[in-house]
């Protein structure tokens, strides 16, 4: 399998090759990484926005106020209003949990499914492995975005269907990754020694194999988070995700796109936030990768 499927996909980043002695003292190293620090700060900010956002909205985000339509940023509407007079700041705050939350939810689900299916296939071997991996092979014949479009086409638009489509599009990649990591871990000297000593498979799985596989898969998921945020907002922009009148950054771009020439704040506010969240996720992912699997420069 190529390590480069991310270019085909919603969010399939390549798996970094970890150096063997990953130590527990990870945080000091991570915090020493400038990009990671910046990403972490941005991420905290955006997470706080996603959690607290709906409670902080100065105006009711979905109520039109035609008298105040298309007002530029000012004292009462800090980020201006849209064509129906809804407060952009309120909508941006209210939409945060849909944009960021949906992407995180999808990746968490994919991570869980991939980890279970992959380690199961890798450890059980035999026909279980054969069946699961043929299924994975079939799902992966289509590029992730195309598969997601197909699933939405069948299920119809909507946030829940979008989540389902994105999970279906990318779970197979993570399952295959987890399986190959498990197979590698099975051959590691510490696992062989435990097997020869008569340690049971359950304890080998939880003591030796799973922690490493889960960590590596989690790094990959973090690297994929940016792509997933872009995908959620992109699909919502096309009207295939979050439905009106609810706010989501991509959907906000779509509903106001014809007013951009006269009201550029309608473009800039959601665009900046999408950019910032993808950037934060990328910085976090790259920081984790650089720390856990630095490139060899002999």
């Amino acid at each position: 399998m190529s390590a480069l499927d991310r270019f085909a996909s919603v969010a399939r980043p390549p798996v970094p090759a970890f150096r063997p002695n990953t130590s527990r003292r990870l945080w000091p190293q991570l915090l020493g990484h400038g990009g990671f620090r910046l990403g972490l700060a941005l991420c905290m900010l955006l997470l706080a926005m996603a959690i607290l956002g709906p409670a902080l909205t100065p105006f009711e985000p979905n109520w039109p106020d035609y008298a105040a339509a298309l007002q530029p940023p000012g004292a009462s509407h800090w980020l201006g209003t849209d064509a129906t007079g809804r407060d952009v700041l309120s909508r941006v705050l209210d939409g945060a949990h849909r944009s960021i939350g949906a992407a995180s939810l999808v990746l968490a689900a994919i991570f869980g499914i991939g980890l279970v299916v992959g380690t199961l296939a890798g450890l059980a071997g035999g026909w279980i492995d054969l069946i699961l991996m043929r299924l994975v092979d079939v799902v992966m014949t289509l590029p992730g975005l195309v598969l997601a479009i197909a699933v939405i086409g069948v299920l119809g638009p909507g946030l829940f269907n979008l989540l389902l489509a994105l999970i279906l599009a990318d779970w197979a990649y993570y399952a295959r990754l987890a399986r190959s990591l498990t197979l590698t871990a099975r051959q590691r000297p510490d696992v062989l020694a435990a097997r020869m000593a008569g340690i049971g498979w359950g304890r080998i799985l939880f003591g030796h194999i799973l922690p490493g596989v889960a960590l590596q898969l989690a790094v990959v998921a973090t690297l994929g988070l940016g792509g997933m945020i872009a995908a959620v907002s992109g699909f919502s922009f096309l009207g295939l995700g979050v439905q009106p009148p609810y706010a989501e950054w991509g959907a906000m771009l779509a509903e106001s796109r014809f007013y951009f020439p006269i009201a550029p704040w309608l473009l800039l506010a959601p665009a900046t936030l999408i950019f910032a969240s993808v950037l934060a996720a990328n910085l976090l992912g790259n920081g984790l990768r650089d720390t856990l699997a630095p490139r060899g420069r002999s």
Partner: protein
Amino acid sequence: MTPGLASAIFGRLAQAVLTALAASMLVWALLPLAPGDPVLRIFEARNILEPNDLQIANLRAEMALDQPLPNQFAHWLIRVTQGDLSVSYRTGRPVLSELLDRLPATLLLLGSALAGSIALSLLLSIIAVAWHGKWPDRAIMLYTQLGAALPTFVLALLVLQYVVVGAGVGKVLANGSASLVLLPALTIAVDRAAGWTQLLRASLLDAGAANHAMVARARGATPRYVLLRHSLPNGIVPFLTAIGISIGGLIGGAPIIEEIFTWPGIGRYLLQALSARDYPVIQGFVLISGLSYVGASLIVDLVTMLIDPRLRRPA
């Protein structure tokens, strides 16, 4: 051509056929999974609003929908290989001809975007490696970080706002002609090239840090010799693989770009089909995308096989 190479190529071709078959199985499965009765939708499309039972039974038999699923798949596959992708629920016209009408525009857009991003990322990563650690490298790294964080559709909206409307370059409404392809293609290229430049720069640096590059330097080779003779051929293999696979991403991203630039390709047509629940068209789009993806990976694998002798062993 050595026997090893021939059998490796043959093996890869056989694998591509299998993959295409698996992909078409997945594509076919969309229709039985989709809600609604395809027969009734087809009559609707033909403006027969209340077909009688005989008409329904006849069409059902013609489409093999009265048979068990494996037979349905076989029937569908045979029809597809004959170029019959059923008819659009909306227009009643054959899906294949509807898609083929719009394919040239999409090919033009994606083809020029692909060429542009390959050229751009090659250029930028060679500059970055040649000035590794100096300001051109840092500037390019900054570009790749920002580019990777800006989704293509957001960049496209910004381009439309500030280049087309603001600066008056290009047109808001495109008609799919070659004279107007530059701006949308460049937008895709600038965005795609960010990720590719990161990748190619890293693999060029890896290849330059490899022992064989050090040996060449120790024999008196210039840095340029090492970069062009050793790093580039070795570093380009993962780059090519990425390109092959990203054909899938390009096609998957086509609808949103075509929608923003009002580009009359199959992506925009797909969006109309999506909102009308026009399943045969959706299926046709997915099939064409899947097959292009399989084909692109095949071509890339064959090229890398020619570059790297170690890949010529039969799988």
